[in-house]
């Protein structure tokens, strides 16, 4: 397998996954806030092709779930109730990509049947739907925060590398300060200082600002290094010989050379920031109920009984691993490809 295949493979799989999250309303059978109080902590629904009579069905179906009133939390399948899985069926209203109102879902079963691919949480909400919806917040936060970090990193790194001297000293020492601060504790302090209930978008902005502002120091350092070597190249000197201004030299000759580092850093920072969001939400610094994010999905695992009794609550964490691996694979392949391009 060549780098080319590795890169495109990773990118295509990532694109598919992001499409799942972006069009969560279509791919998720339920809204993220739909409760099923009588079906709290229901295990993943089994999908059948062969019924109790041994008859094969071309269309997959699910059985109904019965809650045993004597043993709360123990569910029995009700094999008398057969709910065939319908594709492209109409269900709850949502907005596709947050804009176009729609009712079309990829799959679903008729009421009162329920299909929970990844089980349900304490309120009987479909974990699969919440996982897809949760990705919107987490991935968007990751992308925007990574973009913010890199933007600051590019500006700071370019100025420091290009001008050197005391500008370099101030900017880089500042960056080290940012690396050295105990951010987690500062974050707790900031969150404690804020009112208990703040609007969702405010939390979201706070998350992005915090992650973006903390993370710029490392990319700034890398970009500074590239700029340092870029500005020594003879074509930069030649441009100076034609009377070029600093702005011209930076935009035309120096910044284009940082593009490889920026691209690679972006692919590395995104999963890092998605994980940061997960950590912050896990610690209660993230978005609040009922809005899901990957962090709040995993926050349920803080309780011991959830951890010990309901294995499907782990599934979101399990599904995130290949996504992160794909990001790292893409970064790796990008790095290899860009380093083989003569700069």
């Amino acid at each position, binding site marked *: 397998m060549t780098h080319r295949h590795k890169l495109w493979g990773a990118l295509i799989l990532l694109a598919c996954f992001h499409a799942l999250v972006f069009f969560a309303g279509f791919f998720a059978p339920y809204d993220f806030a739909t409760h099923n109080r009588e079906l709290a902590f229901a295990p993943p629904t089994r999908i059948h092709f062969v019924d109790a009579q041994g008859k094969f069905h071309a269309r997959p179906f699910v059985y109904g779930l019965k809650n045993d009133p004597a043993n709360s939390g123990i569910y029995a399948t009700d094999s008398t109730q057969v709910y065939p899985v319908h594709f492209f069926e109409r269900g709850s209203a949502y907005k596709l990509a947050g804009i176009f109102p729609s009712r079309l879902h990829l799959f679903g079963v008729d009421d009162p049947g329920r299909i929970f691919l990844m089980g349900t949480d304490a309120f009987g909400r479909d974990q699969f739907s919440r996982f897809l919806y949760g990705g919107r917040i987490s991935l968007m936060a990751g992308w925007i925060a990574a973009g913010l970090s890199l933007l600051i990193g590019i500006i700071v790194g370019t100025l420091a590398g290009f001008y050197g001297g005391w500008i370099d000293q101030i900017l880089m020492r500042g960056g080290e300060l940012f690396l050295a601060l105990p951010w987690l504790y500062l974050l707790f302090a900031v969150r404690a200082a804020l009112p208990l209930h703040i609007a969702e978008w405010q939390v979201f902005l706070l998350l992005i600002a915090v992650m973006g502002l903390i993370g710029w120091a490392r990319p700034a350092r890398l970009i500074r290094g590239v700029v340092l070597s870029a500005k020594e*190249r*003879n*074509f930069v*000197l*030649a*441009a*100076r*010989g*034609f*009377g*070029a201004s600093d702005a*011209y030299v930076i935009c*035309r*000759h120096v910044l*284009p050379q940082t593009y490889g580092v920026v691209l690679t850093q972006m692919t590395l920072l995104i999963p890092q920031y998605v994980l940061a969001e997960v950590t912050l939400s896990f610690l209660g610094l993230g978005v609040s109920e009922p809005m899901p994010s990957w962090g709040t999905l995993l926050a349920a695992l803080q309780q011991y009984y959830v951890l010990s009794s309901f294995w499907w609550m782990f599934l979101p964490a399990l599904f995130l691993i290949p996504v992160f691996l794909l990001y790292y694979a893409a970064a790796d392949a990008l790095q290899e490809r860009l380093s083989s391009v*003569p*700069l």
Partner: protein
Amino acid sequence: MDARPQLALDRREPLVRVQHLSKQYVQRRPLTRAKFTVQALDDANLTIWRGTTLALIGESGSGKSTLARCLALLEKPSGGAIWFAGENLLELNAKDHSKFHRRIQLIFQDPTSALNPRLSAAEIVAEPLAIQREGTKISRRRRALELMEQVGLPARWEHKRPLEFSGGQRQRLAIARALALEPQLLILDEALSSLDLANQEMLLELLADLQAAHSLTYLHISHDLRLVSQCADEVAVMNERKIVEQKSAAELFANPEHPYTRELLAAMPSLESICLERSA
């Protein structure tokens, strides 16, 4: 030694007069950060006559390139004076700098690193015009194609990137770019050293043609005495950060005065002596 046919050397009008030029670099030792100075130029004197070629020879580290960079306004000398057409380059303000950037151009030894590999040939040649904000994008491109033709690169190669050209072609591209602002002085800092003999020959011819067509003045820095004897009207010899001798080429090769010049000339094997050694 066949020097090039002597032009009537017009010594009435100097284009450049370098007087007592010195340049120190302040550097710091690693770890201790103790400052120390490196003397790169020390009381260098030089005259370049308008429309002629002055070759500057000397061993590496003698300060030739520093002198070139000071002349091209890429470095600030520490002391002395550079008179260019009656004005002292050391006393320029920022606005005049730009004016002199147009009149003095430098060609680097390694054309590969002197050309941005991401830009196309036409973009590279038009760059000085774009920097000086001359004309429109269309007129600049037209001028770039003209210049490419002038240095022997067909205009249909305008979209090629520098890495698609050979070494000699890249140097031609660099020359075309340097000519874009119609300079008076072209400094060739070992510009032909990285090329093979055939390419050197062709580029020398091109440079001579361009000199005649645009009444250019060359400062040709080289350590290749054979090349110097072919192209120079005058030769200046540099040793230990100083110019030790400046004379017309014919005079210098016939009658070297300074002991260092003699040493340098003696080190150059003549073609006859090589042939003799081989046949022996």
